[in-house]
């Protein structure tokens, strides 16, 4: 089996995130420090500008998944009547909120002073946050980001977002008692913008052969861009990571001894099986070098008006991969195939995520038929281990890699 050269920056990220969680925990007992729970696609810049500590139930749920304690916490929500068919992140988080059990030093996240829910990632968060509002009895700021069916985003939807974000700036100021100054907000947007650009650059460095890290690494290094977007610490971290990646490229360090095949990933990670998947693909000398999931945190609208940062921000928050219809997604996937020289795509058909997953069968067929890209569909769940089988998935990966290899050989011949 191939040997991996570990990424030094990981230690720095653990330090950064550890410090952040410590601050968040301490804030729980500090009446002057407000805490907000927010969705991963939510406009966190406004919270940072307002001095509010953001907590991401999705991150926390993923941590529980990685630590393999999510099944147990989900069961707590299920006992209260939440169907097992519901999103496993939502069940993990609700179970954690109800029981106080969680992945941060064994406890649940610090309690929120208010909630921010933006539905640009799915409609599930709408329901999930309504439940959190009932549990904690705190204000809920809801940002409705209309799904964009066409390739070009609609101006009326951008206007709608802009009006909602403008209102949110006022609402956050009212809750904290300190109105957010426009200068501070602009400064935060600039920091966020720089971090987003860095995160995109880092991922684009994986176009290099061999890729200096793989998608399983990017799943891990995603935490700061999600959580700390709009802070100086986030930029510093990604500058370090970028420098390390450039160094690895310089030295020809990849993630496999021999990178023979390059694959793309679609949908959320399967948190409790990262190691298994990484090893199985490595056995075939296949590296996962790009994913629609980690790229979702650096989408910027195509025709953003940079002279009007709030307007640009409003457009950006509509612009993500999963807030778009299938023509957009097809275009993105094919672009990934070209930019990253992919030999195939792995699509995680994620039982928890209807928003991300419905349409994958259609996209898979299109990628195969129209572009000749082999696609592997893995039926699984981001956090719920109860339907996973190592053997079954392993066999499917082996068969898929045979298909990829035989296509390569045909192309060479």
């Amino acid at each position, binding site marked *: 089996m191939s040997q991996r050269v570990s990424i030094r920056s990981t230690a720095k990220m653990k330090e950064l995130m550890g410090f952040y969680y410590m601050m968040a925990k301490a804030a729980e007992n500090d009446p002057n420090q407000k805490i907000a729970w927010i969705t991963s696609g939510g406009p966190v810049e406004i919270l940072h500008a307002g001095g509010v500590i953001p907590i991401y139930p999705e991150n926390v749920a993923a941590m529980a998944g990685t630590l393999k304690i999510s099944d147990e916490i989900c069961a707590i929500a299920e006992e209260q009547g*939440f*169907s097992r068919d519901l999103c496993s992140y939502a069940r993990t988080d609700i179970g954690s909120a109800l029981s106080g059990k969680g992945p941060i030093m064994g406890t649940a996240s610090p309690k929120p002073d208010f909630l921010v*829910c933006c539905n640009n990632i799915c*409609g*599930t968060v709408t329901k999930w946050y309504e*439940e959190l509002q009932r549990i904690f009895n705190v204000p809920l700021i809801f940002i409705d980001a209309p799904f964009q069916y066409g390739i070009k985003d609609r101006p009326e939807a951008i206007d709608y977002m802009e009006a909602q974000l403008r209102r949110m700036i006022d609402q956050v100021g009212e809750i904290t008692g300190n109105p957010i100054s426009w200068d501070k907000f602009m400064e935060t947007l600039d920091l966020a913008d720089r971090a987003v650009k860095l995160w995109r650059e880092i991922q684009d460095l994986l176009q290099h052969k061999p890729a200096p890290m793989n998608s399983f690494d990017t799943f891990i290094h995603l935490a700061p861009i999600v959580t700390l977007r709009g802070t100086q610490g986030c930029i510093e971290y990604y500058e370090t990571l970028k420098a390390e990646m450039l160094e690895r490229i310089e030295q020809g360090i990849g993630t496999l001894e021999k990178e023979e095949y390059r694959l793309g990933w679609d949908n959320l990670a399967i948190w409790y099986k990262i190691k298994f998947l990484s090893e199985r693909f490595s056995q075939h000398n296949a590296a996962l070098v790009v994913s629609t999931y980690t790229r979702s945190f650096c989408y910027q609208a195509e025709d953003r008006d940079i002279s009007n940062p709030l307007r640009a921000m409003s457009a950006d928050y509509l612009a993500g991969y999963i807030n778009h219809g*299938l023509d957009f997604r097809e275009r993105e996937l094919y672009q990934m195939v070209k930019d990253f020289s992919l030999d195939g795509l792995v699509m995680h058909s994620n039982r928890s995520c*209807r928003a991300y997953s419905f349409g994958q069968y*259609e996209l898979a067929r299109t990628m195969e038929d129209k572009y000749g890209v082999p696609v592997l569909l893995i039926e699984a769940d981001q956090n719920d281990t109860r339907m996973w089988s190592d053997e079954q998935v392993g066999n499917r990966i082996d068969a898929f890699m045979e298909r990829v290899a035989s296509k390569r050989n045909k192309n060479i011949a």
Partner: protein
Amino acid sequence: MSSDLRELIQPFAKVHEDLYYFAKKAKQEGEKVAGFLCTYSPQELFHAGGYFPVRVIGEEGGTPLADQWLQPYACSFAKGVLNLGLTGDFSFLDLVVFSHTCDTMQNLAEVWRRRVEGTPIIVVSTPNLNAGEIALTYLKRELTRVKEEVERISGNKITEERLLESMKLYEQHRNNMNRLYQLRQANPSLMTGTEMFTVVLSSFLMKKEEHNKLLENLIKELENISPQELKKPRILVGGSVCQAQGFIQSIESAGVVVSDDDLCMGSRSYVLPSMHQGEPIDMLAQMYLSRIPCPAFHKPGYDPAESYLEKVKNGHIDGVIFLQTKFCDPYAFNYPYLRKRLEQEGIPSLLLEVEQNQPVPEAFRTRVEAFVETLNK
């Protein structure tokens, strides 16, 4: 029930022979038919554009074609309608209208657009934020866009006058349906829930002009019947199931009467405020935002238990049965809270998971019977 009444209900029952009996008949007579997948599509606009709007519903049976495009964890409604789209059974439709409610509907519209050939589609991007000026402004612009789309596809200009006429017709229909619901709430012995749901189902599948006439005759007759004491327990059903009739029949065979509902293809479609004077698109937008919100939407300050508790109180309901379509997330998320609130009021409830494309399973009835026994009335 008297034979007179039975005769009055008969014409509605045509939909049991063929859901699209009326649509196909209209089509044969040269009219255009628009199929809509959700009660949030502004039917008034499509009516004013010269279409006969009918609700698209799946049918009983497997969905082998849809299974190729949607995962096993997609709801039976999405699969059912997509399957009929793919088999060509919906080819009598001149237009298909989707509304953005849940994640499944949003992607279903996309799969449909790319795989079902022939019929033009329109997606109404309803705001998922269901209150306030900001949402209203957005919805007005969206409805204006939809109006222009309908004009472009149909070739018919939707004048203000025409739209107001359609809105008036729909309002009259809502008033009639509300009246029927009120009569039955006060006097559930008037007709069974099964009969009621024949009327309800047909209300989404018949022309409003025709349905209004039949309704008004029925209401006149019912208004003359004096209340009888009803010894059976009264049940309220809630959920997202579209064709509730089979389930209701099965529930009633356990010795209860389904006297009210909180179904989206039921009373919730008809609880809407009256229109006031104003610009039609504005009135339409305000009206849709004042509905009891679909569970997929967020309405700040709205408590989903409210409408349940109100109906329970006003209709002297003895128990609630949730008809929970499997994989219908918005409803499933509301359930634990609703159950708790009902429990606090001393109202027992039962959750039954259903598939919309399958016949009522034997286990369903067994569980209803066990539940009814606990109601001790």
